[in-house]
C-alpha cells in the first residue's frame, strides 16, 4: 500500500491508494448481517455497492434497517457477519486510528440536523474545521461563509440554533457536513417532514453538491418521487433487513416484483400487510360466523 508524502498544509492529510483508483466502488457492503442483540437481526445478508461520484438511494419502509446501514458504514457498530469496505479498506471498528481517518473523509446529515444547540450557526459549521485543521481564523471564516452560501444561508450565520426553523436546521447541518469537503456524504431521511418548497431545495442541493464536488452521495429515504428525481441508482429494502430489488430508477419503475410495486405505487395492501396480525374480526366481536 503506497502512501502519499505527508502534507505540510494545515488541511487534513488524506491518504490515497493509487493502485485502487481504478475501482469505481467507494463502498461495498458484502453479505452483512447485523443486530444490536443476537435475538433480533436488523440486517440480514445485505449486499450493496455504491459507485464513486454517483447519488445512490436506499429506499424502504420504517424499521427495515436503513439508518443502521449508515451507522455500519461510519464504523459505529461492527457487523456480526460480512464485511464493510470503504475505498478498498475493510472497516474495523476496533481500530480507532482507522476510524478517525475514515470519518474525516465522510460527512453525515442526520434526520433532524443534530446541530449543536449551544453553538451558533456559524460555530456549528466551523466545528469540523476547528477540530481537524489548524487553519487561521480568517480562513475558517471564509470557508464557513462559503459553505453557508452554498446552502443559501449565509445571512443566518450569527443566529442561535433555537432561532432557526426545521428546514433551515437541515440545511445548516448539510453545510456542516460538507465543511471538510468529504468524499462521501450520507443523508438520513433528508426529505422527512419538509414542505414541498424545502423538499425541492434539498433535492436540488443534494444533486448539485454531488456533481460540483465529485463526492459520492448516499440517501436513505422513503420518499420515492424525490429520490428517483435525483438519484442514479437505488436499492429497495424490506422489513427484516433484506434487499428486495436494486437498479436505476426507471428500471425499478417498470419492475414486476410485488414488494417493489407496492412501495413505489404506495399501495396500502400487498406484500406488506395492512392489518397487524390478529384473530378474525368475527371472533373478536363475538359474532358467530
Amino acid at each position, binding site marked *: 500500500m503506497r502512501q502519499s508524502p505527508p502534507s505540510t498544509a494545515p488541511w487534513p492529510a488524506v491518504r490515497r491508494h493509487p493502485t485502487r483508483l481504478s475501482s469505481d466502488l467507494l463502498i461495498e457492503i458484502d453479505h452483512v448481517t447485523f443486530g444490536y442483540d443476537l435475538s433480533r437481526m436488523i440486517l440480514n445478508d445485505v449486499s450493496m455497492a455504491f459507485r464513486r461520484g454517483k447519488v445512490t438511494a436506499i429506499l424502504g419502509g420504517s424499521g427495515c434497517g436503513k439508518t443502521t446501514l449508515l451507522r455500519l458504514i461510519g464504523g459505529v457498530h461492527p457487523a456480526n457477519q460480512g464485511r464493510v469496505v470503504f475505498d478498498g479498506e475493510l472497516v474495523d471498528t476496533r481500530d480507532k486510528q482507522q476510524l478517525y481517518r475514515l*470519518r*474525516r473523509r465522510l460527512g453525515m446529515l*442526520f*434526520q433532524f440536523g*443534530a446541530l*449543536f*444547540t449551544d453553538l451558533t450557526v456559524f460555530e456549528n459549521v466551523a466545528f*469540523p474545521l476547528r477540530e481537524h485543521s489548524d487553519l487561521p481564523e480568517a480562513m475558517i471564516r471564509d470557508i464557513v461563509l462559503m459553505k453557508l452560501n452554498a446552502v443559501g444561508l449565509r445571512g443566518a450565520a450569527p443566529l442561535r440554533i433555537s432561532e432557526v426553523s426545521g428546514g433551515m436546521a437541515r440545511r445548516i447541518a448539510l453545510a456542516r457536513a460538507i465543511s471538510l469537503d468529504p468524499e462521501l456524504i450520507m443523508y438520513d431521511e433528508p426529505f422527512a417532514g419538509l414542505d414541498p418548497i424545502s423538499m425541492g431545495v434539498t433535492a436540488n442541493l443534494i444533486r448539485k453538491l454531488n456533481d460540483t464536488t465529485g463526492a459520492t452521495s448516499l440517501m436513505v429515504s422513503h420518499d420515492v418521487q424525490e429520490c428517483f428525481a435525483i438519484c442514479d441508482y437505488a436499492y429497495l429494502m424490506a422489513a427484516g433487513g433484506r434487499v428486495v430489488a436494486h437498479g436505476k430508477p426507471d428500471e425499478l419503475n417498470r419492475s414486476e416484483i410485488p414488494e417493489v410495486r407496492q412501495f413505489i405505487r404506495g399501495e396500502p395492501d400487498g406484500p406488506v400487510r395492512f392489518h397487524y396480525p390478529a384473530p378474525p374480526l368475527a371472533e373478536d366481536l363475538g359474532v358467530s360466523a
Partner: protein
Amino acid sequence: MTGTIEGLGRFALRWLCALGHAAFFFADLLRFAPAALRRFGLVVTQVHAIGNRSLVIILASGLAVGFVLALQMYYALVTYGAAESLGLVVNLSLVRELGPVVTALLFAGRAGTSLTAEIGLMKAGEQLAAMELMAVDPRSRVLAPRFLAGIFSMPLLAVLFSAIGIIGAYVVAVLLIGIDAGNFWSIMQDRVDVWRDVGNGIVKSAVFGVICTFVALYQGYETQATPEGVAYATTRTVVIASLAVLGTDFVLTALMFSTA
C-alpha cells in the same frame, strides 16, 4: 419461590453490570481529563454554567443556614453559660459538615440535574452521535470539561457557603442577640484549626464534587432518549448523588475527625 430467587439474582447481576459500566465510564472521564485541560476554554465555559449559575442559591442558602444555626445554637448554649462560644459552634458546624454536605446536596439538585438533562437531550438529539461521526470523541469534548468544571466549582461553592454562613451568624449573634463581637471572633479563631477543619472541609467538598458530577454525567449519558427517560434520569441523579454524598460524608468524617 425459585422465581423470586431468580428475580433477585437477575437484579443483582444487572446491578453489578451497571456498577461495572459506571466504573468504566469513570475511568474514561479520568482518561480524557488531561486533554480537556489543554482546551481550557471549554472548561471555563462549563465553570460558568455550573459554578457561577449556582452562586445565588448557594449564597442565599448559606446566609439562611447561618442565621438559623446562630439562633438555634444560642438557645442551647445559653443554658450552660457558653453563649460566647456561639461563633465557634457555628463555624465548626459549617466548615466541617454543613458547608460541604449542604452545598453538595444543592449542587446535585441544581447543577447535577441540569448536566443530566443537557447530556441526555444532546444524546436524544443525536448530537453526540454526530460528533462521533465527525471523528471528535464526545467524551473528550463534552464530558471531560464538565467533569473538571464540577470538581473545580464544588470546593469554591462550599467555602462560600461556609463563609457567608459565618457572616450571617455574626449578624444574628452580635447585631441581633448582642453577643460581644470580639469574643465571637476570638474564641472562633482560637479553636478552629485551618488545616484540620477548613482544610478537611475543602477536601470533603472536592470529593463530593467528583461524586455529584460523575453521577450527573453518567445518568445523562446512559439515559433513554425520550422525555420520560430524561425525567427519570434527572431524578436518579439527585437521589443517587445525595445518598452517595451522605454515605461518603460519614466515612470521611470518621476518617478525618475521629481522633479528637
